[in-house]
């Protein structure tokens, strides 16, 4: 039997003799591998972006919205009839066993002034529960406390965008800003969170105690009114239970009869985002599958060229057989040629895939993530393609009759 280094040398020489043909054959694999990597990178990038949004939004999240008003048979949109209060929020937190934390929210837009700088931004009145519900953290300072809420103290937390717009590189802690002309002391800055799925800047917000917002900033139609309540369930599995418990509790608190409709709505945000993430993953698989087809076509290209090569080199095969090449010697030689083609094509394809993904995210602004798994997958698949599509031509070559092969013109 012939040894592997010699087989490799013979195969490399054969491929070098037909440089253009070898390069074109490889091109099929290069495009296939490159396409698989780019497609997986785009898909993985999309689902990772969604996953990041889920984690910045906070996990296991429910949102309670006030119900819709009906005026003379005309139903207004959800939230038009304020019905939720800080009391509701407190009751949900205390009485629903599946709920970990709540954050009542009363928000509005206001002009904020510090010195010569001013900035229009969203102001959110809430409780210390907000940070826990949304899994947020502070980059500086301290959060406000239950005591601050109880006493309606005029303190605030700044989002990163607000802080940068008002203070630049100055340290905002302990400074006084004015929101709707009411002075507030900055006690903390939130860590950057990026954008929401709908493109809102989550860092462009100021947080104040909900009581302060109710009394000093925004008018309320009735005492303790809040716009929405965010709820964090204990676990993913507790989300449906929490939804049910909240429904029951609020119907009771709002004195809604058995046949009446709710004056509030509970939405499962986490579930919605997870659905989006799921569909992104399915899309990744789909893109990968489509790209794999081109890899398959590349493999068929290899087989085609190897079959031509076997026919062209029939005489060479005859000579090799005459001087003692055995069935496996011939088979190995053509197999190795096919594998070299797909291997080099695979390496080049990986490089093109990686740089292609980078260029795509630069030009189109799509987030792309190149996972090592995708590279291994594409590379391994291209190797398999070489073995699979190389086998038939090699098999055919090895079964030639030596005397026929020698006489072949």
């Amino acid at each position: 039997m012939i040894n592997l280094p010699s087989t490799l040398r013979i195969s490399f020489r054969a491929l070098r003799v037909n440089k253009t043909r070898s390069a074109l054959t490889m091109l099929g694999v290069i495009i296939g591998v490159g396409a698989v990597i780019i497609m997986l990178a785009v898909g993985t990038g999309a689902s990772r972006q969604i996953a990041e949004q889920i984690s910045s939004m906070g996990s296991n999240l429910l949102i309670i919205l006030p119900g819709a008003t009906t005026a003379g048979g005309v139903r207004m949109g959800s939230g038009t009839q304020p019905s939720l209060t800080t009391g509701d929020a407190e009751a949900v937190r205390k009485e629903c066993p599946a709920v970990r934390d709540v954050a009542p929210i009363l928000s509005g837009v206001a002009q904020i002034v510090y010195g010569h700088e001013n900035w229009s931004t969203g102001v959110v009145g809430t409780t210390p529960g907000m940070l826990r519900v949304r899994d947020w953290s502070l980059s500086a300072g301290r959060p406000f406390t239950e005591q601050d809420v109880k006493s309606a103290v005029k303190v605030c937390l700044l989002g990163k965008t607000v802080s940068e717009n008002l203070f630049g590189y100055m340290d905002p802690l302990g400074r006084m800003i004015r929101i709707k002309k009411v002075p507030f002391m900055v006690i903390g800055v939130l860590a950057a969170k990026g954008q929401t799925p709908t493109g809102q800047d989550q860092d462009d917000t100021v947080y104040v105690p909900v009581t302060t917002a109710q009394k000093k900033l925004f008018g309320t139609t009735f005492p303790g009114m809040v716009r929405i309540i965010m709820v964090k369930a204990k676990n993913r599995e507790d989300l449906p239970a929490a939804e049910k418990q909240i429904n029951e509790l609020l119907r009771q608190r709002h004195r809604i009869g058995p046949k009446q409709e709710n004056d509030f709505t509970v939405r499962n945000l986490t579930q919605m985002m997870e659905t989006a993430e799921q569909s992104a993953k399915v899309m990744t698989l789909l893109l990968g599958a489509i790209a794999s087809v081109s890899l398959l076509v590349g493999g068929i290209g290899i087989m085609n060229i190897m079959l031509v090569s076997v026919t062209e080199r029939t005489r060479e095969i005859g000579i090799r057989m005459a001087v003692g090449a055995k069935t496996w010697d011939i088979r190995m030689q053509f197999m190795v040629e096919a594998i070299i083609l797909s291997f080099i094509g695979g390496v080049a394809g990986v490089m093109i895939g990686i740089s292609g993904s980078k260029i795509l995210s630069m030009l189109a602004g799509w987030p792309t993530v190149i996972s090592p798994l995708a590279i291994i997958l594409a590379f391994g698949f291209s190797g398999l393609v070489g073995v699979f599509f190389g086998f038939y031509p090699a098999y055919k070559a090895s079964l030639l009759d030596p005397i026929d092969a020698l006489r072949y013109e």
Partner: protein
Amino acid sequence: MAIIEAQEITKIYRLGDVDVNALGGVSLTIGKGEFVAVMGPSGSGKSTFMNILGCLDQPTDGKYFLEHMNVGDLDRDELAGIRNKKIGFVFQGFNLLPRTSALENVELPMLYDGMPARERREHAADALKSVGLEGRENHHPNQLSGGQQQRVAIARALVNHAPIILADEPTGNLDTRTSAEIMEIFVKLNAESNITVILVTHEADIAAYSRRIIRFLDGHVISDMRQEQS
């Protein structure tokens, strides 16, 4: 001692619906160290017979013993092993690998014998030297004359120390002077290394180098004469 023993060898080719009787029961014995010329017109079956002797082809019927081994019992790869170690081929058309140096062409039989590269190179260089091609090791076949190419083929045939060399019209493509040079190599190999040489030829002056002439006609041996080497 018989190195080759053919008993009632027949070979029938099927060409479409017609059976062609290429060999009609040939029995021959060739001893070790003989120098045999096989002659006959085209289609007489001499080439078919040579291919069977060289284990490139299998007889339809009959028995062929090579060094007392029944070749009919061997499978494809065992036959390849016989061709590798027992038989050296020299063809009319040289049959060298194109775009491959003389040295690597000569290395081929050793390559398939699994010899390490360094040893292969040394033996191949020695074999080329013995046929007078020293200094041409790295020439490709298309850079060599016909005579030189045939010398490379002879070096390839003897590099594995095969006891038998089968030459199918080895001088068919060469001019008279070069033919004589090539024949001298065969004579020398036969005389000095006791290699059994069997060659097919049309030409009487080439056959004259041998000591035994076997004539074929229509698939049969019609004469088998021993003669003095001229």
